[in-house]
């Protein structure tokens, strides 16, 4: 039990970094991340609304649709009304008007998702944005203090980000075993996607990478090995030291999936790029060089008391 506790503490320390002092740059950086998350959610909500109006019946109930009938959502007005609620709830959450706003947005977008994806497809493209919104919702309920809100939500985003990729690798090893990386499996998926793209767009042409992949079995196998290995180490995003390298691999994997299988997970890539690299150091550096006291004062007013982070002090010493 003691070992389990120590393990949980070790993970908590990595993802929440309790000793780390929040800089002005981090505040701006987090606002950007939060804006990205709510923009993605609002975009999904409005994109799904017109589609829901076309659906008449449920083929495969997902999530809460397994317990509650979502037929009432198959209406000309309700999906748009729900998208409006999601937009308002996200805006209220961002402006900290009510601590339950983000939670309302989570439930509303869950309903939008289970209504939109009731025809049999289990879409994963929006999962990352949904998890990030959930992290904001939990943090908003738990913490009034902005610094703690940001620390918890960022830690929770990192936790589920790492868990998601590694669990995907574990599923592959359980579902197929180590031979999952057999290049012929990729050929089969490329064949599947060729039918999908032809049916969706009206034409399909293999790209250069797909042609090489189909020609060379070893290349197809290496690509699958890279994908599986990258997913398996996804959990290492919990460590701030390894995070940028792992995120680079994950972004590369997503591009690989897009080029070989024509499957785009763009919202994952956006969140990975923003959450995976320490952009706040750049912002801190820029703020320090600009040294606009009015801008700094404005940030301080929103953020609360802050001090110069240690790493910036050392950078400042080295600047002639």
């Amino acid at each position, binding site marked *: 039990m003691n070992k389990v506790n120590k393990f*949980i503490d070790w993970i*908590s320390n990595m993802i*929440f970094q309790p000793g780390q002092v929040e800089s002005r740059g981090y505040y701006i950086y987090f606002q950007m991340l939060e804006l990205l998350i709510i923009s993605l959610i609002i975009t999904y909500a409005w994109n799904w609304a017109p*589609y829901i109006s*076309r659906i*008449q*019946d449920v*083929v*495969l109930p*997902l*999530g809460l649709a397994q317990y509650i009938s979502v037929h009432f959502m198959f209406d000309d007005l309700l999906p748009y009304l729900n998208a409006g609620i999601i937009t308002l709830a996200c805006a209220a959450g961002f402006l900290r008007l009510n601590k339950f706003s983000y939670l309302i947005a989570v439930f509303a977008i*869950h309903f939008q*998702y*289970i209504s939109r*994806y009731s*025809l*049999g*497809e*289990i879409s*994963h493209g*929006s*999962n*990352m944005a*949904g*998890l990030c919104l*959930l992290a904001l919702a939990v943090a908003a309920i*738990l913490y009034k203090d902005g610094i703690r809100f940001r*620390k*918890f939500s960022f830690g*929770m985003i990192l*936790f*589920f980000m790492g868990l*998601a*990729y590694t*669990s*995907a690798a*574990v*599923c*592959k090893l*359980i*579902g*197929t075993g180590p*031979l*999952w990386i*057999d290049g*012929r*499996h990729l*050929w*089969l998926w490329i*064949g*599947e996607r*060729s*039918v*999908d793209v*032809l*049916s*969706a*767009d*009206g034409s399909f042409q293999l790209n250069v990478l797909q042609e090489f992949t189909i020609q060379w*079995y070893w290349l197809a196998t290496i690509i699958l090995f890279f994908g599986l290995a990258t997913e398996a180490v996804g959990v290492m995003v919990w460590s701030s030291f390894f995070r940028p390298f792992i995120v680079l691999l994950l972004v590369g994997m997503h591009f690989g999936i897009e080029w070989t299988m024509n499957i785009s997970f763009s919202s994952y890539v956006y969140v990975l790029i923003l959450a995976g690299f320490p952009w706040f150091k750049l912002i801190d550096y820029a703020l320090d060089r600009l040294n606009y006291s009015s801008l700094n004062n404005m940030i301080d007013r929103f953020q609360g008391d802050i001090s110069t982070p240690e790493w910036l002090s050392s950078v400042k010493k080295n600047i002639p």
Partner: protein
Amino acid sequence: MKKNKKALITVFIIFGVLVAPHEGEFWPFSIFPMFSQAGNPWVRSHVRVVDYDENMINWKTVGADQLDGDVLSMVSLGVNQNDVSNFVSKTAEWNERALSNMRALLGEVTSREQIMIYKVTGSLHPEISDSVVISYQPYIFMSPEATILHPDLRGDLPR
């Protein structure tokens, strides 16, 4: 820090409780099981505009190079290809209601054109190890006047 830890553990337990009995999926929670079973045959859909005499429909399963008519692009209809494919592969019983839903999904093209919805299957060739076999089975014929199912699917439905 303690509060953070407790909250994270609580969310993690909720995650486990929700995904475990729901085959790994409870949006936004997922263990991402897609692509976990590699090498399995797959089923997709493909829709074409055809010009058939309704009494002489060609129900023969063919390869991509022997398909009749022209591709009907799902993007041009504003329909997601995955939805049509999943509708075709996951509908257990093709009754009047399912067919009416399919018409609603495809929209007004079904009241204008003759279309054939193909069930497309793909698998690794059982004998030639470096080959993928893709076959197109004519599945549902829809015209402004009639809906005709592949003979194997016809149950009590009126033709």
